[in-house]
């Protein structure tokens, strides 16, 4: 899928591009409102990641104009300003999502995937996971024909690890995904460990789960 990153902080834009490229997105960069508009007029994007604090204007002003050229695109607002009004105005102007900086790139990808499923009707079938299969649409894990009972948080954990497979996720990143702003590293780390233990226990009764790895001192990883 094609992504336009409109962000004036070049180092940040670069990191976002690096990450998304690894996840097989095609990326274009723009550093001002003018550049952004230029790109949108010429190309058609699936995703437009829009920073608000741009040097030549408010990112929000780009939205209505961009929508004329690229109405099917999904717009995600990224901002460090922290105003509640920005979020409301943005969503009112037609943005699909809003992420406050600093955000995790993992979280960004997770949101983009959710939007893709919703907006672009990307039909995903059950994907093999070791001897199991995971159906992201229906939010369940199966072994052959049997559905495995996982709590909501357990499923969220597993699917997040799966989305970012072959990548180590720290306990911090995992708990922030599940609890958002109320994540508190001290407590939730233990909880993550307990959850992973539970997931392993539940799945192990059906088949081995060596694809779910513990990386000592760092976190967890699904190897596929």
């Amino acid at each position: 899928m094609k992504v336009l990153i409109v962000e004036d902080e070049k180092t940040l834009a670069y990191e976002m591009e690096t990450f998304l490229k690894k996840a097989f997105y095609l990326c274009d960069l723009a550093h001002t409102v003018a550049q952004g508009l230029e790109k949108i007029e010429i190309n058609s994007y699936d995703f437009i990641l829009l920073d608000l604090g741009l040097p030549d204007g408010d990112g929000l002003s780009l939205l209505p104009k961009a929508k004329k050229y690229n109405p099917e695109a999904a717009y995600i607002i990224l901002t460090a300003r922290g105003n509640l009004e920005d979020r409301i105005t943005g969503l009112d102007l037609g943005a699909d999502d809003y992420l406050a900086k600093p955000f995790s790139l993992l979280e960004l990808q997770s949101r983009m995937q959710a939007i893709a499923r919703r907006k672009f009707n990307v039909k995903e079938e059950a994907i093999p996971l070791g001897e199991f299969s995971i159906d992201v649409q229906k939010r369940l894990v199966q072994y052959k024909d049997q559905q495995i009972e996982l709590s909501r948080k357990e499923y969220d954990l597993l699917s997040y690890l799966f989305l970012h497979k072959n990548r180590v996720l720290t306990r911090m990143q995992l708990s922030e995904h599940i609890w958002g702003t109320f994540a508190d590293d001290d407590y939730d780390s233990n909880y993550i460990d307990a959850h992973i233990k539970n997931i392993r226990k539940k799945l192990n009764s059906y088949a081995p789960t060596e694809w779910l790895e513990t990386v000592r001192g760092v976190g967890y990883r699904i190897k596929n």
Partner: protein
Amino acid sequence: MPFLVARIASEYTNYSLRDQQKKVINDVHKNGMEYYLQGDDSYGSYTMLKQEYIALEPAASGLHIDTIKTVSRIIEQDTLSYRVLSHTFKIKNKNYLLEIGKTVGSINEYNKPLQRIALYVLMGLIALTIIIDLVFTRVLIRPLGKIIESKLVNRKFPFKDQSEPIKTSTQDFKYLDESLISLMDQINIDFEKEREFTANASHELMTPISILQNKMENLLADDQTTEDVALRIVGMMKTLDRLKKISSSLLFISRIENDQFVKLASVKLVDLLEDINEEISHRLEDKNLMLNINVKNQVILKNVNHDLLFQLFYNLINNAIKYNVEQGSVIITDTFNKQGDYQIFIKDTGIGIASEDIDFIFDRFRKANLAENVGYGLGLSIVKSIALYHNIDIKVASVVKQGSTFTITFPKVMLG
């Protein structure tokens, strides 16, 4: 009033009697005495109802009378009271006495109607004056009313709506109006400046943190990163996370203190506490704690900010869990106090707070001397800021090694 009217009548009568006297004497000089006497000794003329009479008769030479008196006279068996003018005058060297009389009754007969009319006129004038006064002052004061209506009634801080100057030619009102407009504009400007500042501060603080976080995330996932290096990167990410939390908390407090949150919502406390329970219950498992929400009243708080209230209780309950002991408990109860205010108690069986520390727990970055690094010290500062903003009172009582009880008091006016 009657006295006045009577006096006027009386004075006028005297005047008219004198006037008649002059006329009579003129006529007598013109026509001669014989014309009137006609051989008789005297001349008398009465009106039919005996209300007036004029009498002429000879008088002794040396007699001098010139009076106006009220006397009683008997005329044809009727006793009447007369106002009589008696005057002596000489014609052709003979002295005559002239009497002109008028009944007191006829003098006063106009009194009552006159009085009544005067009274009506007076009342009419009073009413007219009152009406004119009311209309006049209304018209004069109207600009003041307009000023109050357009500038002061229903205005909410920070006075974002544009104020139209009112039309008036009165200098004072114009000045008052302009002053109010300029004051409110100034408040609005300052507020917006503050808001812009915190937005900018937020941007300036959060952007570098954001860059670092994303750089580290990418570094961690890099193929060339060894296990060793990965460990160090995770260490850095933890520290950055700490920085992130402190910065956001400080910005948060700054926004609260600059009144940048609206207080327009109505919140049902029981529901709020249940929501918090859902968010936080997973943390009870670690130490096997019990969280009991025993709130009996279905209290609704009005004119509050939902998210801020959520944060307030969340922080307090989180602390109750954080500083608790193995198999401990957190119990939440409520009551109404004597003044009708609503109170919530959060009681924990935690490590307690030393008496010398209690006064300082709400200060920023103040932490108890603990073995572990528990928290960053801003949780209670946030609680204090939110409480202050909402006019909520917070008190704490604690015994070391036994536990603490936080009492949150909501004033009566907040209850919906």
